[in-house]
C-alpha cells in the first residue's frame, strides 16, 4: 500500500514526490523502485516503450492503483485527463464539467471553463453529439474547473486526428501558461513531448532511465534535433 501525503508547502519543494515505487503484475515487475519528482508548475512528459509502466506510474499517482508499493506525495487538487474523454453520456456537457465539484459558483466556473476551451455554446448538448476533439475539450474543461495543482494526462490526444491533435496541444499549452499546474503527461509521441514539456523523462525496466530538461532547447532547431535523436535512440528507434 502506498502512503499518500501532502507535501510541505514551500515554493522550492516538489509538488509531486514519488519514491521507491514498486508494482508487480502476475509475477512481472513493472515498476522496480522508481523515483520521480515534479516541481510546482512544471510540465513533465513521460515517454517509454509499450509495457514500460508509463500508465502504471500515472495511475499510481492518480490514486487509481490500490496495491502499488512505495511513497507518493501529491497535492490534493488534481485532475486526470484520460485517453478517452470519459464523459458521462447521460449528462449534458456542463453537468459533465461540474461532476465532482460543488459549492456556490461551480456552474459559473464550469461555463467559464467551457468558454476557455471554445465550447461556450455547447454547454447544454449531449456528449454523443460532439466530435472526438470537442469531447476531449470538454474533458479538459472538467479538469480545469477543479483548478488543479497537478494535471495527470494519459495519452489524451492519441486518439484524435493529426490536425485536431495539434489544435489540442496548442490549447493545452495556453491553458497551462494561464493556470500553471504541474503536469505529468504520458505520451508515446516524441514530437508532442518536445513541443509541450519542460522536461522529458523515459522509463525502462521499471525505473527512470532518462531525465532531461527540454524547454531551454526549443529556441534552437539543432539542439531540438539532437534531443529528438537522443530520445528516439533510447526508445529503441535508431536512425540507421
Amino acid at each position, binding site marked *: 500500500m502506498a502512503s499518500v501525503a501532502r507535501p510541505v508547502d514551500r515554493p522550492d519543494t516538489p509538488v509531486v514526490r514519488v519514491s521507491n515505487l514498486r508494482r508487480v503484475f502476475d509475477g512481472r515487475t513493472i515498476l522496480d523502485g522508481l523515483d520521480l519528482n515534479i516541481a510546482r508548475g512544471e510540465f513533465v512528459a513521460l515517454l517509454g516503450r509499450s509495457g514500460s509502466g508509463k500508465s502504471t506510474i500515472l495511475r499510481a499517482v492518480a*490514486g487509481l492503483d490500490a496495491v502499488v508499493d512505495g511513497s507518493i506525495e501529491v497535492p490534493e487538487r488534481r485532475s486526470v485527463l*484520460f485517453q*478517452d474523454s470519459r464523459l458521462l453520456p*447521460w449528462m449534458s456537457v456542463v453537468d459533465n464539467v461540474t461532476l*465532482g465539484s460543488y459549492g456556490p459558483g461551480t456552474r459559473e466556473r464550469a461555463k467559464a471553463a467551457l468558454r476557455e476551451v471554445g465550447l461556450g455554446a455547447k454547454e447544454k448538448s449531449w456528449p454523443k453529439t460532439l466530435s472526438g476533439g470537442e469531447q476531449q475539450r470538454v474533458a479538459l474543461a472538467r479538469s480545469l474547473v477543479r483548478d488543479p495543482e497537478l494535471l495527470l494526462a494519459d495519452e489524451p490526444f492519441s486518439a484524435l486526428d493529426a490536425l485536431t491533435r495539434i489544435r489540442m496541444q496548442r490549447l493545452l499549452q495556453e491553458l497551462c501558461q494561464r493556470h500553471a499546474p504541474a503536469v505529468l503527461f504520458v505520451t508515446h509521441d516524441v514530437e508532442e513531448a518536445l513541443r509541450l514539456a519542460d522536461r522529458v523523462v523515459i522509463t525502462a525496466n521499471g525505473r527512470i532511465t532518462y531525465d532531461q530538461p527540454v524547454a531551454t532547447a526549443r529556441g534552437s532547431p539543432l539542439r531540438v534535433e539532437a534531443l529528438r535523436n537522443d530520445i528516439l535512440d533510447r526508445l529503441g528507434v535508431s536512425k540507421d
Partner: protein
Amino acid sequence: MSLISFTTPSGFLQRRAKPRGQAQARALLPKAPFPAQRLLGPVLILALWYVASGAGWISPAKMPGPDAVIASLAKMVVDGTLAIDVAASLQRAALGLSIGVVSGFILAVVAGLTRLGDALIDGNVQVKRSIPSLALIPLFIIWLGIGETMKVAIIALGTMVPIYINTHAALRGIDRRFVELGQTVSLSRARFLRHIVFPASLPGFFTGLRMAVTHSWTALVVVETINATSGIGFMITQARIYGQTDVVLVGLLLYGVLGFGSDGLVRALERRTLSWRQSLDQ
C-alpha cells in the same frame, strides 16, 4: 499434372463493377420507420379476418366477424358490464406490477451493490425464475385464499423477476472506466450512485420494465381464468360456458389492446428518459 484454366463468365466483372448506391451503403441498418408502422401488422390481420368472415369462409359460431365483435363490445360498454371487468383487471395488473417493479428494483440494487445482498438474494431469484407462476398458484391459494391478495401476489412475483434480472445485470455490467472517473473526481458514494450507477443501469431497468408489463397481462389471464368473480378473464370464462364466442373475442381484443397500449407507454417513457442515447430506435 493438369493445367486448369479459368474463364470469367461474361457479365461477372460488370456486375462486380456496378456502382454501389445509397441502398447498398445502408443495407446493414433497417430502413427508417414510417409513422405508426407497428400498427400495420395488426390492421392487416383485422382486414383479413373481416374479409374471411364477410365472405362466409368461417362459421359465425366458431369465429364471428369483427363487426359482430364490435357490436357486442358496444353493447357491453353501454350496459356498463365491461367497465366493471376492465377496471377490476386494470387494478390487479397495476397493483401487482407496481409491487413487482418496486421490489424487483430494490432487490436488484441491494444484490447489485452489496456482497451480502448478492449472497442472500441472487440465488433465490434465480431459483424463482425457473418456477413458473402457474405452478405457484396452488400453494398461493392455500396460503392466501382465492381473493385479490393471491392474484396480486402472483402478478407481483412474476413481474419482479424480469425487473430484477435486467437491472441487476446493468448494475453489475457498469463500465469500469466510469468508476475510475468517479474516483478521480472524488465522488462520494451517494453521488457516485446518483450520477453514475443509477443512470448507467436505467437502460437495463427499462428492458426489464417492458418485459414486466407484458408479463403482468399474461399473469392476469392466468389468475383471472382460474378463480375470479370479475375481470376480463372472468368475462371470457363465463362467455365460454354460455357459448358466446363474440364475448370471448372481445376479451381477447381487450387483452391485446391493453398489452399493446401499455408497451407503447413504456416505450414512450423510455425514449423520453433515455433521450441521450443514439440507437436504432431514434
